[in-house]
C-alpha cells in the first residue's frame, strides 16, 4: 500500500511537472492575434454579435442555435485564420479538434462538420447555406454574408 502511494505521488509529481513545463511554453502570448480572424454567418441568422462562450459552444457542437436561428459550424482545413481561431476561441489544436469531433461521430452524438479548403470556399458555403457560421482572415472580403461581432 505504501509502495502504491509512493508510486502515485511520484507519477503525479512527474506529470504535473511535465504539464507545467509544457504550459509555460504554450500559454504566454506576446501579442493579441484575435484581430486576425473574423466570424461570418449566413444572412438568415438574426444575430449580429456572438459571445465567446456561444462561439465555442457552436463550434464544438454543444449549441445548435443562436438568437433563435439554427446554426451549422463550418471549419477551415488549415491556414493562419484556422490556427488563430482554434487556439484563441476553442483552446484546441487542429489535431485535438479533429479528435474531439471523431469522438462525437463514433458515439453517434454529432456529424462531422463541413470542412472547406480555403477562405473563399468558406465564404461561398456560408453565403449559400442557411444557418452556416464560419471564420476567415480579417482582411478577406465576404460578400453575401454578415460579420458577427465577438463580444
Amino acid at each position, binding site marked *: *500500500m505504501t509502495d*502504491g502511494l509512493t*508510486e*502515485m505521488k511520484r*507519477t*503525479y509529481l512527474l*506529470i*504535473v511537472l*511535465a*504539464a507545467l513545463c*509544457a*504550459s509555460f511554453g*504554450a*500559454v504566454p502570448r506576446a501579442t493579441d492575434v484575435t484581430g486576425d480572424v473574423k466570424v461570418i454567418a449566413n444572412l438568415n441568422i438574426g444575430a449580429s454579435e456572438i459571445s465567446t*462562450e456561444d462561439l465555442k*459552444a457552436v463550434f464544438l457542437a*454543444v*449549441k*445548435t*442555435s443562436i438568437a433563435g436561428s*439554427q446554426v451549422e459550424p463550418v471549419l477551415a482545413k488549415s491556414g493562419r485564420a484556422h490556427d488563430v481561431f482554434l*487556439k484563441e476561441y476553442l*483552446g*484546441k*489544436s487542429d*489535431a*485535438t479538434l*479533429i*479528435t474531439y469531433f*471523431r*469522438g462525437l*461521430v*463514433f*458515439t*453517434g*452524438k*454529432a*456529424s*462531422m462538420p463541413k470542412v472547406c479548403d480555403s477562405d473563399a470556399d468558406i465564404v461561398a458555403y456560408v453565403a449559400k447555406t442557411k444557418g452556416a457560421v464560419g471564420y476567415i482572415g480579417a482582411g478577406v472580403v465576404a460578400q453575401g454574408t454578415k460579420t458577427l461581432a465577438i463580444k
Partner: protein
Amino acid sequence: MTRETVGIDNRRASGARLSAAIRIMALGTVLCAAPTALYAQEFKIADKAVQVHGFGSQGFVVTEGNNWLTMDTTHGSGAMTDFGLNASSQLTKKFRLGMQVYARNLGALGEFQPSVDWAFGDYRFASWLGVRAGKVKTTLGLYTDTQDLDFLHAFALMPQSVYPLDLRDANISHLGGDVYGTAPLGRAGSISYTAYVGHRDDSVHSAYPYFLLARGTHDSTYLGYQWGGDVRWNAPIQGLVVGVSGLGERLHGEGIRLGLPNREKSRRPDTTAQYFSQYAVGNLKVDAEYKHFNRDHLIRNFNSEDVADVRAWYVSGSYRVMKRLELGTYYSHYTITSTFLGLVDTTLPSGHDYDKVVSGSIDINRYVNVKLEGHFMNGYGFGPYPNGFYPQVNPTGFAPTTKGLVVKTGFNF
C-alpha cells in the same frame, strides 16, 4: 513435455508471430497505399445527407510473465482485431438518427460476432435539454463511451484498471434512454449532465462468461437493468473538466455448473462511482480518474454470497511533440478484494495490478496511425471478476509480474 512437443509449440508460436506480423504489415501497406479510399462517405436519401464513417485496428502483443487478455501473448499474439461502421443523418433541425455495427476478436473473446454497438434517435430541444433513445453509448467517466476508439487516444490500451479491454462490452452501452444537456454558468464556465436508464445483455463471447468457464460454470445469460448519471463542470480555465459519474446495476446470470442449472444475481445493486478530471490545452492532455466498483452477488444458486470490491485509479499525460508524433505515459492502479475467495490483502499479487506504461503514437496520415507501447505490470489481480489475466491461458499458475509490448495500427474515416 517432450522435445518434439516443445518443437511443435515453438513452431506454432513462431508461426503465430509470423502470421500476426504479416497481418499487421499487410494492413499497414493497404492503408498507406490507398488513403484516398478512406474518406468519409456522404450521400443523400430523400434530400437528407447521410454520413458514413468507419474504423478498424489490428494489434500484436508480446509479454513476458503471464499470458494476457485471453491471448497467448508469451508467444506473441495478433489475435487483437476490431472494426466498426456507422451511418447517421440529421433528419430535422433537432432530430438525428444513427447506427453503428461493431465486431472484434480479442484472443478468446468476441469471435468476430457482429453486434449493434449503438443505434438511437436523438432529439435536442435545446442545448440544455436533449433525449436519446435506443442503444446508447454509456457516459461514465472520461472515456467509457470511447474506450475502444484508440485513434482518439494517445495509448494503444487505455489504463486497464479503469477501462479493461476484455470487459469492453460490460458497460460500454445500454438499451434504454438518456436525458442530457449543457447549461452555461456565466463566468463559472458550463455544466454538462447525462442521466439514463437501460438494460445490459452480455454476449456469451464476452469476458465474464469466459472467466466463469475456468470455475466450471457455463453462463448462457448475464443481463440486467442499469441506471446512472454523469455531471461534469467545464471550468472557465481553458481545457479543465472536473466531474463525477455513477452507475447502478441489478444483474443476474444463468447457466450450467457441474451438469446442473446454476444461477447468480445481485443481492443489492452493483455500484460504480467514478471521479475524474482532465486538463487539455493545445497539444497537452493530463487525465486523472478514480473508480470504485462494488458488487454483492448471491452465487452458486444463491447459496453463497460474494462481495467484491474494486478500487482503481490512474494518472496519465500525453503531449503531441510533433504534428504526427504523440508521446504519453500513465500509471494505472487496480486492487480487488473478495469475501467468497477470502481475498483481503491487496498487497498480494492476486490482489492488485499496478501498470506503468510508456507509449508513442505516429500518425502515418490523417487516417492511419501506428502505436508502440510498453507495459510493466506488478501483480495480476485475480479475484471473482475478470482483470485481464485468465487461468485458461495461464494453466500452470500466474507469475507475479508481467512485461508487455503492444504494437497496434488502425485506421478511421
